[in-house]
């Protein structure tokens, strides 16, 4: 059964700058799409195209100016914050800034578990954390009890992923999760996202500016430009037969290694 996890309708974010002479800038403009259960949807676009704005609005970190976001057919405003974040979680571009350097990396996990599983006893929590870290391919003794600067970007990003998994979310929003970590860790994170989708049926909204990654991971893609959707559809359809000029331009800007592959 294919079920709609999240539906976005006419989502708009307008920024107004200046008090006297106002100037309007759209972070997102009439964006509509949906994500089904167990689907990986990629949002592709250059920087400033409003991808992250949409991610932040779905994560309820930013209030939309207009439009509706529905989770499981119900407006997200009807959810309590606590319940909402049990369904939707996210990871961000910069793993280093996702950690408060004041605390050890355990801090984010403890925060998460004390919210989502506050009733379980300590031994059980330990087991859950160890398990979850195992899922993302980390050993607890290598990671816990350390400060963020003692770990690599890839490790940090995976701990954040583990943190999200503690909530057992239905939707994971990955906002350029690979752009600030090194190349081999990048593939690991991508494979991990796919594995999670395959095993636990989590839907993923994957945001990237890298067309190669989008093609590698996603079932469907949406191409964005200046806050508006240019084109969308199944991955191969969009990337192999682009209809819009912008998509073509975007594809032609991909490093030549891909082009040679196809011709």
């Amino acid at each position, binding site marked *: 059964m294919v079920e709609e996890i999240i539906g976005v309708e006419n989502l708009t974010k307008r920024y107004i700058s200046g008090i006297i002479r106002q100037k309007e800038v759209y972070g997102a403009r009439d964006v509509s799409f949906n994500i089904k259960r167990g689907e990986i949807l990629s949002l592709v676009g250059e920087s400033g195209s409003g991808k992250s704005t949409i991610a932040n609005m779905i994560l309820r970190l930013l209030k939309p100016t207009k439009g509706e976001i529905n989770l499981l057919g119900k407006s997200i405003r009807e959810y309590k914050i606590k319940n909402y974040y049990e369904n939707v979680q996210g990871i961000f571009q910069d793993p280093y800034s996702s950690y408060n350097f004041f605390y050890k990396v355990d801090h984010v996990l403890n925060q*998460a578990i004390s919210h989502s599983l506050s009733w379980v006893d300590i031994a059980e929590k330990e087991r859950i954390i160890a398990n979850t870290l195992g899922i993302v391919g980390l050993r607890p003794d290598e990671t816990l009890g350390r400060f963020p600067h003692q770990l690599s970007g890839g490790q940090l990003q995976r701990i954040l992923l583990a943190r999200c998994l503690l909530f057992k979310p239905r939707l994971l929003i990955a906002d350029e999760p690979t752009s600030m970590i090194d190349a081999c860790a990048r593939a690991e994170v991508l494979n991990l996202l796919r594995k999670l989708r395959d095993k636990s049926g989590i839907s993923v909204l994957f945001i990237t500016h890298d067309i190669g990654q989008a093609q590698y991971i996603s079932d469907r893609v949406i191409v964005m430009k200046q806050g508006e959707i240019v084109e969308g559809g199944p991955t191969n359809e969009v990337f192999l037969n682009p209809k819009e000029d912008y998509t073509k331009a975007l594809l032609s800007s991909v490093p030549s290694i891909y082009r040679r592959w196809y011709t």
Partner: protein
Amino acid sequence: MATETTLISKSLEKGEKSPIINILSKLWGTIKRRYKKQFILIMGLLVFVLILEILTALPGMTDPKYILFDGVKYHSEYPPSWKYWLGTNSTSQDVALLILHGTKNSLYFGIGCALISTAVALVVGIFGPFIGGVWDTASSFITNIAMVFPQIPFILFISSLMATRSWVTVMLIIGLFSWPWAARAIRSQVLTLRERNFIKVSKMSALGNMKIAFSEIIPNVLSYVILVFSISFGIGIITEAGISMLGLGDSSGNFVTLGYVLWYHQTEYILNQNFYHIWLSPGIVLTLIFLIFYVIQSSFIMTFNPRTRENM
């Protein structure tokens, strides 16, 4: 596997403590670890206050305004001697004793001022930008306006219009007029922190605004807060001494501060070259206090430089 579980249980036990105690103990640990030098200096200062407290509690030293009269004549205007280390003034009071009490009281006064202005600066600087919206605009607007308000004229104006002033009133006035610069410094730091992802991560763990402010923001502005505190400390003491010297300090006359000692002599001894011992000493003590704070502050100053901070 055994190591794993112990590590996890360790980390979880920490999380199990009441959140406030948890945060406080972490703050304390960081203060001790990161700010060791400043920590020692501040501790040294506290020990100094304690010594002053003990000295002034010794028999015969509790009343700074005790009039030296041996039944025959008043010991007024004595030069420094073994009996009166810094001599006596025209009212036959022991200057050394006045300075001892004045230093102690001035330090207390400085702590009070620093507490008030740091608290206001924290509230305006952290909660304004953090709650956002109208509060943010309001706090920024108030800070900008208060920045232009001249501190000393306002303090003088208010104290001059009051029939009676206790030292607490003076402390409140000074404290409430010396926060804007600190609020602005903290504010701009919070503004950059606010955009960091870990705030988003905490929000996604469904933490409330207040909890985020306490557990995520405050630890990160800690060095600022300590710096702001120590600067306000120095400013409080110097400003109080300045307005007390004009006779606008504590009106009851029972709260002897260094400024009060200066005022006492300002009225009679100004430019009288025979009485250096009376007006030189309070100033030297004030200068020393300010220099001690300068050492504390300058060890922080690198934290404030945006370009060097990244390396820390």
